[in-house]
């Protein structure tokens, strides 16, 4: 069997889910940049969940939960998606092959650990990685992984493992494709709605684990590291950096991608406040990078030197304050 969608164009993206949706919808005639896919689905967030452990570390997230972009775009711009999951692996593979033979490009949820083209150091057990399959040649799938510069491949065997990995957020072979794609987007209405959702969420989330309160909560946790085991303390700090940069966020924990969305929206709507907010959000991203740099220095420091947890906590708190100003400004944009 040999299928490959002839018209498919791979695009390098900052993040997997927004990259998949941008490429997929653009392929179906609705030109949508990755920042637009991210922004219009209100995916920006912050969460610190000390009771949810990932490889022994608490969950720290700079965006909303997995699938939030797919769902958010359905809700906000009227795309309709079909998501199929399977209890039987064989059926899951056959169904994917049928869709590919029909000439479809298909999104898939996979585990990072089983993707053969990923460098070994980056393979960890995370089941929420999204990619596009655009063809199959013999027993090898042609894959457009948005966070890779060029297209890649995986064998039937490897891809099946990745689609049916077990554990938290098990993908259950999930594949998805659009059943309806609108030809235009009503930016005048959708942008204000999507922006306000994010601004209100970040400013007002009542629980202390999410939004700006989540950042303050994390700052407290950093202060408490003073009394913890020094190896754990350094791993904890390194974990913050990994969640901010390593997992594919477009840089500085999605803040730059969101700034890009604000800028693009500002141009489309001719909205000065959005354009100014975009610049402020860029500055926020720069601050997050400064924090990452401070953390790297403290991880690097010699065993005899103590880490200045107070300085790190204060930096994080200042970033939360900096973000607050942007969200308050965004609420006045419309």
């Amino acid at each position, binding site marked *: 069997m040999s299928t490959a969608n002839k018209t498919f164009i791979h695009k390098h993206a*900052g993040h997997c889910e927004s990259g998949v949706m941008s490429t997929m919808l653009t392929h179906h005639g609705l030109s949508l940049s990755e920042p637009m896919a991210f922004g219009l689905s209100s995916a920006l967030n912050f969460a610190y969940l000390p009771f949810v452990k990932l490889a022994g570390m608490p969950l720290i997230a700079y965006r909303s939960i997995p699938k939030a972009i797919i769902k958010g775009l359905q809700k906000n711009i009227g795309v309709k998606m079909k998501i199929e999951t399977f209890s039987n692996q064989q059926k899951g593979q056959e169904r994917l092959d049928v869709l590919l033979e029909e000439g479809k490009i298909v999104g898939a949820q996979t585990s990072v650990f089983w993707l053969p083209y990923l460098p070994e150091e980056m393979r960890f057990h995370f089941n929420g990685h999204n990619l596009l399959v655009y063809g199959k040649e013999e027993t090898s799938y042609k894959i457009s992984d948005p966070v890779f510069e060029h297209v890649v491949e995986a064998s039937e065997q490897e891809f099946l493992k990745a689609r049916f990995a077990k554990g938290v957020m098990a993908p259950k072979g999930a594949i998805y494709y659009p059943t309806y794609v609108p030809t235009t987007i009503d930016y005048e209405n959708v942008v204000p709605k999507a922006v306000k959702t994010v601004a209100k969420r970040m400013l007002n989330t009542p629980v202390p684990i999410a939004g700006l309160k989540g950042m303050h909560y994390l700052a407290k946790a950093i202060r408490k590291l003073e009394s913890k085991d020094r190896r754990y303390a350094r791993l904890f700090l390194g974990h913050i*950096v990994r969640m901010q940069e390593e997992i594919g966020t477009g840089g500085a924990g999605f803040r730059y991608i969101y700034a890009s969305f604000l800028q693009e929206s500002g141009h489309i709507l001719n909205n000065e406040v959005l354009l100014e907010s975009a610049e402020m959000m860029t500055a926020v991203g720069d601050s997050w990078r400064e924090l990452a740099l401070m953390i790297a220095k403290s991880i690097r420091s010699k065993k005899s030197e103590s880490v200045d947890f107070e300085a790190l906590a204060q930096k994080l708190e200042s970033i939360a304050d900096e973000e607050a100003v942007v969200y308050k400004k965004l609420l006045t944009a419309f």
Partner: protein
Amino acid sequence: MNEQEVPQDENSIYRGQKRAVYATGQDGEYGVVASSGWDVEEEATQQAVAELERLADEAYEACVSGQASPLEFHMYDNRLDILSLSQATGLFQWRIKRHFRPEVFAKLSEKMLERYSDVMGISNDVLKTVPKRES
């Protein structure tokens, strides 16, 4: 971050690949810039990898000296810990911990071993022993 500030630190983990990051050009407009990596990120990744290697080494020594079964070594060697191994296999954590005991592990059925080897992507034969290392 503007284009010039995008780090190009040749992250060895990327193996020559590049990552897309968002940065502003000279005109202030955003675009994607391919980055070869940032030292800060690479250090954080290496730190996490080193920690897993440390745990795997400890488990290896424990196995060689007869204090632990090979299961604990293979768990860390395959980027798992007790929590994620429990979630992937559907086995309770206390059961897995019990299987860390050599005498209990030795009596496990092939079927039980398969529950472990399957989520690790290794064979039962590999799971039953630790690879030889030069001392």
